């Protein structure tokens, strides 16, 4: 491992690392932010017509900016690691295509469903669900393939498809928890039930990835289970378990509190779910580092020229805090319970 890491005091050493962090954080931001709005799309078929409108209204002002984090993540891969962008994306050609068609379908359905003729609305609702599912499933599938180092086999396909379903249920969990906080009354109660249903499958998924990753690669196994590493990494699974327990307790207690008109802890499920995603992501990042393509291409092999990275780095350092600031501003403007969307 250490022999893979070059001198970090020169730009050619630390810049790729910095960009890996930016890329990782962008993908994490994407997974959480678009995760909850994809999740809302996945839950759509289970709601009544007027609930559907409100569910979509709850994500309306955000989804565009949320998806921009995906462009940012893949953009960093493209610009900072041009050698890997081609390899990774050609290996993932089919799931990427599936995801893109899904995202397209869903993004346009969002607008068409309220603008098209009434009798077409149901069709666009279905497109919204289908697109959300295609995107969520494809992203999980890609994760599976990435873990297996783009191995081509029947087992790899089955494993990846399984991760695809787990990620979809993870997104459904995020979406349900988002709805718990952003809606009220009947829809809120329904969302609690949805969250309970999806949390079980999410737990199975997190468990499967956590077990599979070290078992599939000796190198990753050593990273987690050698004695000197064990001390540093044990908090990750431990906190994950704690968060699952907290989430489950919150979901069980909420209905009682809501009966008393007490909204205390209404964001608790969402924050726990976000915490779970962060930890799972952290664990994966730890397993895979410093490889972009497992056992083939490290971040330093794939990096662009340092002078080009520096140009982007300067811009990113100035602009990223501004992006975060105005994103927070937008979330605050649309804080509180979701209301029907109206164009002025």
């Amino acid at each position, binding site marked *: 491992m250490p022999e893979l890491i070059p001198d970090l005091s020169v730009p050619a050493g630390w810049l790729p690392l910095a960009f890996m962090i930016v890329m990782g954080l962008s993908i994490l931001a994407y997974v959480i932010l678009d995760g909850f709005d994809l999740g809302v799309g996945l839950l759509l078929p289970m709601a009544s017509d007027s609930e559907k409108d409100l569910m979509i209204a709850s994500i309306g002002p955000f989804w565009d900016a949320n998806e921009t984090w*995906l462009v940012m993540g893949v953009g960093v891969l493209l610009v900072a690691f041009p050698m890997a962008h081609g390899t990774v994306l050609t290996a993932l050609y089919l799931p990427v295509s599936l995801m893109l068609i899904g995202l397209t379908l869903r993004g346009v359905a969002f607008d068409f469903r309220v603008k098209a003729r009434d009798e077409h609305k149901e069709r666009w609702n279905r497109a919204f669900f289908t697109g959300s599912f295609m995107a969520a499933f494809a992203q999980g599938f890609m994760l599976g393939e990435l873990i297996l180092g783009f191995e081509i086999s029947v087992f790899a396909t089955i494993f990846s498809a399984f991760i695809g379903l787990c990620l979809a249920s993870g997104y459904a969990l995020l979406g349900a928890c988002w709805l718990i906080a952003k809606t009220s009354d009947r829809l809120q109660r329904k969302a609690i039930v949805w969250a309970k249903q999806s949390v079980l499958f999410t737990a199975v998924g997190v468990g499967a990835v956590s077990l599979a990753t070290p078992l599939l690669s000796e190198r990753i196994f050593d990273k987690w289970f050698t004695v000197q590493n064990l001390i540093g990494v044990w908090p990750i699974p431990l906190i994950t378990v704690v968060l699952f327990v907290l989430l489950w307790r919150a979901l069980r207690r909420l209905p009682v509190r809501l009966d008393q008109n007490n909204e205390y802890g209404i964001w608790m499920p969402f924050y726990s779910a976000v915490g779970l995603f962060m930890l799972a992501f952290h664990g994966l990042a730890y397993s895979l580092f410093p490889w972009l393509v497992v056992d083939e291409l490290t971040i330093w092999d794939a990096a662009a020229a340092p002078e080009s990275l520096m140009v982007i780095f300067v811009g990113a350092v100035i602009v990223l805090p501004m992006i975060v600031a105005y994103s927070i501003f937008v979330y605050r403007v649309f804080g509180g319970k979701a209301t029907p969307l109206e164009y002025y």
Partner: protein
Amino acid sequence: MLDALILARIQFAANISFHIIFPMISIALTWMLLYFKWQYNRTGEDYWMNIYRLFVKVFALSFALGVVSGITMSFQFGTNWPGFMETVGNIAGPLLAYEVLTAFFLEASFLGIMLFGFNRVSNRIHTLATFLVAVGTTLSAFWILALNSWMHTPAGFEMIDGQAHATDWFAVVFNPSFPYRLVHTLLASGLTAAFLIAGLSAYRWLRGDREKSVIGGIRTGVRLAAVLIPLQILAGDLHGLNTLEHQPAKVAAMEGLWETQEGAPFVVFGIPDEEARTNHFALEIPKLASLILTHELDGEVLGLNEFEGEHPPVGMVFWSFRIMVGVGLLMLVISWAAVWMLRKGREPSPLMSKLLVGMTFSGWVAVLSGWYTTEIGRQPFLVSGVMRTAEAVGPVPPATVLTTLIAWLTLYAVLISAYVAVVFMLARNASAKEKLETGVNAHGPRVAPLIDPTIEPAGAPGNA
């Protein structure tokens, strides 16, 4: 079986064609929305807000289509052209990164406030949000056209071990064709939006809607077009001269000139034949090409035979150029005729209204044919003189590309039809809605923002 290169090109062309038509609407339309809002703030006349309300919906739809197809673009650089970033990634990377950082987040974040935030922020913040979205869309055009222009006229770099490295970033961004391309494209966006505004308003007029917002929309649209089209013709001419200097093979293909000659004729019509290296059924105006390109009757113009094996496919460039010019001339005639017809508060004739409805999406035709002229005209190179398109293509099996290509084309056909249908439906709904509001608000000058239950989601109570 088609080969991987052709399929990758068709797929990328299909995606980028589908993508570009939506930003071409939204870039200029945001500025027009800002204008409508400003007019309303200034005059207090409700009809400006009615125009705003119709076109903000058209904008939202166009923007959404632009975003989702743009996400596709960012992936297809890698899936279809892995060699591109491996060779010129050091140049293209920072330009794309700055587009994401300075433009995408800005427009996507403030879009929410612009579209849905009027009741949650002050009027001033709402106007600011609209302004920032407009700035974002325009900045996005700036960066992506800087990269695109660099692919046509690369500058400010050196090749080290087969990879481009920047030596002068100012020269990279402001490469020779960039200022011309940027102006030409922004004006094209303005014309696309102008004819869209005029066309949809004329459609309402034809259906018998005589609200002030209808005639106001027609008037704004045709006036904007009438002002922009002469500027566009001038900008196009200058861009052409710039191309002649840097990419003579492209100009030769546009003109359909095979032999280098002094006093070259302008080929009005002809069928270029690359096998025989001549034009069939050619109709020529003597010396005109030399006059246009060199501003001298006997100026020398290089012919395609100087670039044998290194020039683009002639027929496609030749024809798409003529379609673009034809649509441009049509825009000139119709917009000026319409402005004259509408002088001093006169009304448009049914024929003029029909013409304007017919021209609603004329901007798309001009943009796409212009885009094909310049991009196909760059072939066989991906980056002029630096790398060929064939060198960038990826190892994905042709059958896989073909399958996804069919899926994309089907999806695009559905979405374009849905878009056009919905845009006209929004115009019809706007008529129905304003009629309703005029009745309700007869007692007051200001129109409250109403939700039309037939087209907007009716949701739970508790509207803040």
